[in-house]
């Protein structure tokens, strides 16, 4: 049954990470990061599985995942656009950029596209304040954004999605 193999794959993944980082609570965040990067979200089963492997309670995993902005358990798009909304970027014109992103992605902030390709969200200062407005797409940073630049960037990611689909390839070096 497809369901079983999916779950088995998840278990293997979790254990593989725990083997690198240790079967202890300190591994919780690295595991969540990897699972999130690979699956886009952390579902109910994954949380319980992680809890089981680390011998903690599922509700604690839930508590941790909801605490960190980058570990939200909800499934997010393959590409997560995080636009900085903090002061320097606000001064640099983040509102115009935001409008363009909304338009080009067809999403409101906080939304994920139905095909699972994109998520648009706000974030706080990215440490690129001298080159605002700044945005992160997954681990990649874009600075000095203008509406025109946004259009090109979104187009490029769209092409990428058309070519590769929404299946994730873990981009983070393990």
């Amino acid at each position, binding site marked *: 049954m497809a369901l079983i193999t999916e779950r088995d794959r998840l278990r293997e993944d979790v254990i593989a990470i725990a083997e690198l980082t240790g079967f202890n609570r300190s591994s919780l965040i690295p595991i969540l990061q990897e699972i999130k990067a690979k699956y886009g979200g952390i579902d109910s089963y994954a949380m319980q599985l992680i809890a089981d492997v680390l011998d903690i309670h599922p509700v604690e995993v839930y508590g941790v995942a909801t605490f960190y902005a980058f570990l939200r358990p909800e499934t997010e798009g393959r590409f997560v656009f995080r636009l900085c909304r903090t002061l*320097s970027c606000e001064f640099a014109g983040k509102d115009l950029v935001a409008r363009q992103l909304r338009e080009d992605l067809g999403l409101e902030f906080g939304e994920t596209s139905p095909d699972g390709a994109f998520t648009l969200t706000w974030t*706080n200062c990215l*440490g690129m304040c001298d080159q605002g407005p700044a945005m992160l797409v997954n681990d990649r*940073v*874009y600075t000095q954004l203008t509406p025109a630049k946004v259009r090109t960037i979104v187009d490029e990611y769209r092409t990428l999605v058309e070519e590769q689909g929404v299946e994730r390839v873990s981009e983070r070096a393990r």
Partner: protein
Amino acid sequence: MTVQTVIETRVKGLTFATIPAGEGLAKALAMPRGDIIDLISDSKLKGRGGAGFPTGLKWNLAAAEKRTPKYLICNADEGEPGTFKDRVILTDYADLVIEGMTIGARAIGAALGLIYLRAEYAYLKPHLEEVIEARRGQGLLGKNIGGVDGFDFDVVVGLGAGAYVCGEETALIESLEGFRGEPRNRPPFPVVSGFLHRPSVINNVETLAWVACILAKGAEWFKSSGTATSTGRKLFSISGDCARPGVYEFPFGITIAELLEEVGGENAKAVQVGGASGRCVPRSAFSRRIAFEDVPTGGSIIVIGPGRDMLEVAHNLLEFFVDESCGQCTPCRLGNAKLLEGVEMLMEGTCTSEYLHDLRALCNTMQVASKCGLGQTSSVAFCSILDSFGDEILGHAGRVR
């Protein structure tokens, strides 16, 4: 991808560029451990992460602890709005930082170093790991470092996950241990009981890089710039309404006016010094000096141009805190939201002066009764804006009923 992602931060006058890695550690390894701490204490180096705690004293406390293993943690969570100097240091001078960690480890007897890198800087992780690997190859990390028998130390990089409060040292430790990033009760301080309940020193990226420089050049060299209590030079992250934003190095004691001239922000109406948790300094106070004894900062300067609405500034900063408070203690968990609500009422003109007075008093409670530095400082900017720009805020028609 065609869109440029090269990071083009303007960097000016960095001492770090003139100090080759290796020199500091070599000198440290030739010294008795106690002398390293004495040298740092003598330099009067104060933490560059914002709080300005004397680094020598912190190390002394940790060195005096008998429990082992000890940990040395590099705080690379740089989340304070308007701060990006640590990013520049980690990109260009990671060697110096890791050298500083190694020196610190030697001084306090730490067995392991951890770099807590914020998730937003995940792209720096491979680079840092390369630097670490290279140093291992050179025998500068690992066993018997620099040929010194029994001096074992290694460094690993841990990633944050998007929480500003994890820059607070005890929250950082909680996060490293796999918990929600909620600050601990202090005392006990991390130097007594930190990561995994072991003595742990937490230092900012810049602090550690300066350590390497001080070892290389000596305490006198370091003290020759800055003021008597705020010795040395400091990296500033400058952004906002100015012609030449970037990372600059200035000696402590520089006035805000001098600094603004350097970066092309002379016509500023105010500057937000020290990020969101810092003070908003109005034009009339531009002669104030930047130093721990006058206007302290972790290095963030946001220039606020003449056309900006100060209420919008307060709104933006409070939005940040309402998002980033860990939500553990009452004053901060609920207080920030009340302040933000208050600013919104001011914007709509529905805030009575009586309520504004209540909010002002609430700020004071938040500053004295919150559990950690976040709640203790989140209302500082709002208060200073009220103080300096009261007329602007209240003058807007209908803002106060």
